[in-house]
């Protein structure tokens, strides 16, 4: 049913209906934001990604294949933008990582704070932080697979569509990513 609603909105937006486009943005902005935030661990950059994603959608309607799910196309654009950003960021990455490992508490620690979690759930916030760091530390090629799997709850074949790679590759990366997270979270759980 949701899909049906999507298809209609997409059709209207494609024909230039600004209101339909605004509705599409409204429906998907948080999902894309969440995805970008998990990939980049930065609110500001994540919002940039959302904006850039929808701009690309708007500019590239002619490239959208209606047989494909709109969300798949959208995730593909957003994921690629995030991966590009991570790649560009790489030279500074080590500095950042070193700082995080030593002190454990810096600018990034404040980020989970704006995740609308009630203060009473302190334990959960801590767990979230642990996971936040674990995900952040994932190598980029595992990161996108893991995030699409757990954050967007996509099936393996959907992930293979989004990332444009064979299901077997998705599987391998998911398994390695899962092992990576297991090791990171091993002694911190419960």
């Amino acid at each position, binding site marked *: 049913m949701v899909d049906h609603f999507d298809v209609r909105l997409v059709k209207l937006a494609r024909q230039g209906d600004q209101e339909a486009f605004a509705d599409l943005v409204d429906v998907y902005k948080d999902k894309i934001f969440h995805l970008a935030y998990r990939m980049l661990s930065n609110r500001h950059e994540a919002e940039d990604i959302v904006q850039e994603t929808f*701009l690309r959608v708007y500019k590239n309607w002619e490239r959208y294949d209606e047989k494909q799910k709109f969300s798949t196309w959208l995730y593909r654009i957003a994921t690629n933008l995030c991966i590009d950003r991570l790649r560009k960021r790489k030279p500074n990455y080590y500095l950042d990582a070193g700082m995080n490992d030593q002190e454990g508490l810096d600018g990034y620690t404040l980020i989970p704070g704006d995740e609308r979690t009630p203060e009473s759930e302190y334990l959960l916030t801590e767990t979230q932080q642990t996971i936040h760091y674990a995900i952040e530390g994932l190598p980029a090629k595992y990161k996108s697979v893991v995030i699409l799997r757990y954050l967007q709850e996509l099936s393996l074949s959907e992930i293979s569509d989004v990332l444009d790679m064979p299901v077997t590759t998705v599987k391998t990366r998911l398994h390695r990513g899962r092992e990576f997270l297991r090791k990171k979270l091993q002694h911190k759980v419960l």
Partner: protein
Amino acid sequence: MDCKQATSLMHEYLDDELFGEEALSLQRHLQECPSCQMHFKELEQAELMLFATIKRSSLSASDELVDRIMKSIPSQQKQRAWLQWVKRHPALTAAAMFLLVMLFSTISLWNSDDQLIVKGKDLDHVVINGRTVTVPSGSKVAGNLTVENGTAEIYGEVEGNLTVIDGSYYQASTAKILGEVRSIDQALDWLWYRITNTFTEVAYR
């Protein structure tokens, strides 16, 4: 079943892709192998933590983001529409550009140029006095005669066309003009004359 095989089956299980016989054999192995059991428990926990984090954290972008996106869009579209038209009609675009350049160059020429110009193949019998170009009676110009920025006075004979640009002409009763008589005193006419002349010049070369 060895532990390596078991690990790969654990992942299959967590991918929701392990059923029947294989699932049972994994279960059997886990019961016998404490280290795999531990491994599986850790994987399951990591998995649960990841899912829990997602369910609990409803991250949302700032509210003004939709506005920001919508504002950044229309200008983009105008530019695109224009660009698309250009992409779709390369020949028309080239022609339009050509006309535009022609228009500007000729208009600037037309405005700045007020020298008397007399053109023709046979100008021996033509008398030029100030801005007046006279073909005296009894004489004959073989071919075309073009007068720019001046007055043409024809008493004799012109075997070709007479063209007067940005000026005037007088034709006496004795005058004989075999070709056409054209008077051009408007930028657009002149432009047309230029373009057609350019083409014929090019064609004849």
